[in-house]
């Protein structure tokens, strides 16, 4: 399969360095490479799958199996600002569902966002439920992109929308 996608030199050297972390089996670098790809391109396209497979001497299906297994990998772009709200019990007891609905309304997002991002019409925001983020004592919690926030009240959520928006 041809991989005509062009990646930057820096990207490729980051990838090559990462592969050295797995001297026994290059295949182990699959997840790290998928992370790198998603950080660089926003989501994992088929091109990404094929590029990584070629890099690691794998079949594309070997990589695609991972993209669809691990919820953090996306096959489509998410919003520029991504909310990931904890859905699990302790946060739910602390108002996680209410927070989710509030944010959805605030960012005018349709779609349910139960595992898999629902994106706002102009593509600016996306929101999804994720499972326990290991901060259950300070629920409800959420992540905005890679940043983590605890005890997020509706007011705090409004601030966050402003801050990142």
């Amino acid at each position: 399969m041809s991989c005509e996608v062009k990646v930057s030199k820096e990207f490729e050297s980051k990838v090559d360095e990462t592969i050295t972390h797995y001297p026994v089996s290059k295949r182990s670098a699959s997840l790290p490479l998928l992370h790198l790809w998603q950080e660089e391109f926003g989501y994992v396209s088929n091109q990404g799958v094929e590029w990584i497979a070629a890099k690691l001497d794998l079949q594309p299906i070997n990589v695609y199996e991972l993209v669809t297994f691990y919820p953090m990998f996306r096959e489509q772009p998410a919003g520029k600002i991504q909310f990931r709200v904890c859905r699990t019990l302790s946060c739910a007891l602390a108002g996680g569902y209410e927070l989710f609905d509030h944010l959805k309304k605030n960012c005018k997002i349709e779609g349910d966002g139960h595992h898999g991002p629902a994106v706002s019409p102009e593509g600016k925001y996306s929101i999804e439920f994720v499972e326990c983020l290991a901060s259950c004592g300070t629920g409800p919690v959420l992540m905005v992109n890679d940043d983590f926030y605890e005890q997020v009240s509706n007011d705090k959520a409004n601030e966050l929308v402003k801050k990142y928006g």
Partner: protein
Amino acid sequence: MSCACKNPFNHDLATENTPMVNVQIDGEWVQVPKGMNIVAAAERFSKFIPHYCYHPKLSVVGNCRMCLVEMGTPKMDANRQPILAADGKPEIGWMPRPQIGCATQVSEGMGIRTNSPLVQECRKGVMEFLLINHPLDCPICDQAGECKLQEYSFEHGQSNSRFIEEKVTKPKNVDIGERIVLDDERCIMCSRCIRFSKEFAQDDVLGFTQRGSHTTLAVYPGKRLDNNYSLNTVDICPVGALTSKDFRFKMRVWFLKETKSICTGCSTGCNVLIGSRESEVHRLTPRENEEVNSLWMCDQGRLGFHEIHDENRLTTPLIHGVKSDWNTAITQLAHQLQGFKPEQIAIIASARMTNEELFLLSGLRKALGGESILCDIISRTGVADGILRSADLNPNTHGAQLLGIANSGKLEEIRSGVTKGSIQALLIFNETPGEAGISLESLKKTALVVNLGMRLNGLAHYNLPSSSFAEKRGTMINGKGRLQRLNRALSAPGQSRDDWEIIRDLKAAVGGGNGIHTVEEAFKAMANVVPAFKDLTIHKVGDLGIDLTLSNSLV
């Protein structure tokens, strides 16, 4: 015993020096090879433990949980010696949790219960889980009759469904390969097909996408399950998720008559079952023979049978293109042949013919003049794939050599003889002049051209319709020197006859009869004069064949 073909695993076979251990299966003490898994070990004593994901030739993953059994190990005393019960046998400490039979290896003093109430309850539970998201389309499913889901649910399941939720929907009718269609809703995610493709066919093309209940068998977009072994996945799929386009919707399997035979697609000689109904072959499936093909066959071989039902197949004897009858054809032909000197006659035979046919042919040759008659076969070579397919695409090269029909270099002489015109009578058996490299012009100049086979030769003066591999009984010797048997699954169409009969009759017309009335007798006559077949009969060849390199001196 090891398998002649390269299986990644052979869980059902024990190596020769494996020690035996005493194991209690359902209360009875028996001896089984140490380390064998419980499913394979129990099977040796006709205890069938239902299973889906386990396959004796593939890696063990233990994902279906259908083979759960109760298992125990001997109770030990303070000195780590087994405590003996009143009957002198070890007392067994049963594990509270069921264990999977496919991944549990037998050891000394082990106890196994294959059908206890707990085991039955486990099976019932697993069956229910497998069925809740399974579409109820058995009436239109090709697998019906061979479906392990249907079969086990009848034996181990419960009749009424408690599942009232919406079923998970998945892709149906997915075109994943040239020859294969996938129905993901029927898939029970046993991963047999994935493991087969990767481990046996060396084509890591299948995989699971999504997760949990939504797990979906798939190929990567743009990739296809097209390898030459793809149809074996249809055989090993325990349900009707993978189906053969060739066989799809054509026939209910329970109507099929299955005849044990061999594939004649190459010199491997894979053992097969010919699935036929009345006058039609519907499929070939591999038949287990650890010395040859284990449980597999290639797609080319499997689908090669279609020429049998070619609508242009020759089915009536023709003399100068005019329909005739056998009596006339044989008498006239014999008469005509006798008008040629041996040097003017040549025989192009085929290493796709059986030993019996070739033996009778050598008799005909003798009757017509013997050694001075040029005689050879057409060799065919492809590429050995390192899996099953051999480079020699003729199934019976050894036989043709042994019986003096294949004479290396003679084909070239025949070709030039025909071109020069020194050969005036050319007898072609199950081959075409084109493949022999003989031009049409030179053929046109030849006084007598005889064609025996399934296909018409427009330039032949005599066209004699004969039988396909599925229509005949006889023997062949594969590339490794194994004598194997073909059996007749159906009768040849129209006036077509068995090749050996036609040759015998021709020989009788030329040089007198030989008292051979059956193919068994043909074999017997052959065994009397050919040392490699000494003391053998077709019957003795059996379903699995005989290694001639061991029993008789095969050259």
